[in-house]
């Protein structure tokens, strides 16, 4: 997938030859810092991109079916029943003027030919399943009457209402506290196992990745730097960016030593560096890094990285 955004200052090359796959029943994590293209990737899969986005080349396949060639009406039917999404901030994703029960019932009724009563019964069952206390009461509550944690539980039950295959969770716990975060993540994993869901978990928190994902992709400035099974990524990160990122995390055993940081700032995507987009900040950069664009290749079993260091390129 390569994708541009038209902006006032020029064409931003927001995604550049992004390639990854998510297995059935797998939790795949996508990590990276602000502006690296994680959320755009999710919106591309759902075909919810803004009008300023232009797909240069690419393909998104769900169970072998190409999504980019679907009509809008076909996509509409897919969203909710095959793919659904849980957003970062439940307070702004729920409609403030309708009770949450009504919002779920509408989701169900727009996909399935059921009576309102049946749809509400389904909502109560879902609320029970996601651990909301007193589900009948929650059904008639407005979003502002619920806490952040409860709102996110409502969002999750809404996303799962029509039994999708793929759930995209975009920073689902950034808006809640750590003890609630632990509850929500436990719930997501429980549901994932129970319903054999595939999950694309987008986060900037490497701790969350380590505890929830089977495989993970590390994004940098619109490119995938590395894709690996989670354990391998933390044990032996290949890409210099991943290595630095992991070293910059504060740990109690590093007390007294300065933290590793990455010099400079994230490049502009309107005028990204040539060759490898990370090369101006990379401690191992070679002359060829500014010319040749590295390809995401398998350098260890199931462990892919886009870096010339592993392509046998020397100065």
């Amino acid at each position, binding site marked *: 997938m390569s994708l541009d955004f038209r902006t006032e200052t020029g064409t931003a090359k927001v995604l550049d030859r992004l390639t990854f796959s998510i297995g059935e029943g797998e939790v795949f994590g996508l990590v990276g810092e602000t502006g690296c293209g994680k959320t755009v990737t999710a919106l591309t899969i759902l075909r919810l991109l803004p009008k300023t986005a232009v797909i240069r080349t690419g393909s998104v396949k769900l169970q072998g079916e190409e999504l980019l060639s679907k009509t809008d009406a076909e996509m509409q039917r897919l969203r909710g029943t095959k793919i659904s999404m849980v957003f970062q901030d439940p307070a702004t994703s729920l409609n403030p003027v309708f009770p949450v029960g009504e919002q779920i019932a509408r989701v169900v009724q727009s996909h399935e030919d059921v009576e309102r009563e049946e749809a509400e019964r389904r909502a109560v069952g879902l609320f029970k399943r996601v651990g909301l206390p007193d589900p009948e009461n929650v059904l008639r509550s407005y979003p502002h009457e619920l806490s952040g944690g409860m709102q996110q539980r409502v969002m999750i039950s809404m996303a799962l209402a029509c039994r999708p295959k793929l759930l995209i969770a975009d920073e689902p716990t950034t808006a809640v506290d*750590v003890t609630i975060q*632990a509850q929500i*993540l436990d719930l997501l994993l429980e549901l994932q196992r129970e319903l054999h869901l595939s999950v694309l978990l987008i986060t900037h928190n490497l701790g969350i990745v380590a505890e929830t994902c089977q495989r993970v992709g590390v994004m940098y400035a619109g490119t995938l730097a590395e894709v690996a099974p989670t354990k391998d990524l*933390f044990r032996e990160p290949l890409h210099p960016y991943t290595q630095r*990122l*992991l070293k*910059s995390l*504060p740990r*109690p055993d*590093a007390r007294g030593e300065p933290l590793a940081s990455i010099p400079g700032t994230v490049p502009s995507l309107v005028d990204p560096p040539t060759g490898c987009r990370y090369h101006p900040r990379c401690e191992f950069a070679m002359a060829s890094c500014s010319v040749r664009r590295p390809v995401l290749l398998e350098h260890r079993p199931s462990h892919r990285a886009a870096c010339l260091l592993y392509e046998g390129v020397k100065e």
Partner: protein
Amino acid sequence: MSLLRVEGLQKLFPVRVGFTGRARVHAVDGVDLEIREGETFGLVGESGSGKSTLGRCILRLINPTAGRIWFGDLDLTALRGEALRKTRLQLQIVFQNPMASLDPRMRVGQTIAEPLRVHRGATAQEARAKVEELLRRVGLHPEVIDKYPQELSGGQCQRIAVARALALEPKFIVLDEPTSSLDVSVQAQIVNLLKELQRDLGLTYLFITHDLALVSYLADRVGVMYLGKLVEVGGAVEVLQHGQHPYTLALRNAVPLPDPDRERSHIPLKGEIPSAVTPPSGCRFRTRCPWAQERCAQEEPPMREVGPTWVACHFVEEIQTQIQTRRGTST
């Protein structure tokens, strides 16, 4: 030696309940705390625990309802007018979101020079020289002096907020979640800067955060807050790795670590943080505590020294024994 001592600090905020009812939010409710000269005291807790309110009370940005705050031998809560203004120069704060705490209509130079002009009566020229020095000090090129905050990155803005806090050469700085709006690689830069400044200038920090990993990396001592109360205080390593209060244990357990091999022992906390308008009687944590007993509802647990830390829990010894035996049988 203690630089700052907080005694029985309480802050209640009045709120309306319904149309006519009045009630009070117990934001901070009876906190005792000592911060030693040259140390970093980490204050951790979730939203609504009262950690920011405590920080702001210390600077008298809000006035406490009750209690005293001693800065050396000065009682900050008793100071008024000119005396307060003078003393405050030694206490500064860096806020969470630099984009919101820097005036978007002031250039970087003006922002940092303002305290110098107001308090030191610096001329434009003197101020400019000092501002350039401060910018270099926080790792920025002096050419940013004529820029507006919105032309800079979040990390650069936070450096400017730090430079502004340093302008009057304070002794004590409250750092209120200074890196929580930044990406980890930028956070690392700011944390390194703060440590360097502390070493070079002999600063004392109150570091407020919800990030346990960060606080375990940089704090010397740590206090854990829950619903307006301190529940555990002690050395950073002691509290964060061998903490004993059930809430400290739960918090530690809930934080995801970047270590895929860690086995999370699940003690999931029940429910959510209760309302601070009508906090639970006795121990405030009892409604979510897996070990709560009747006594916890009747009697508020006092802070007492238990092994390596100070803990406010009636049953901490029993809980520790239970955990030890459980661990013994599982291995």
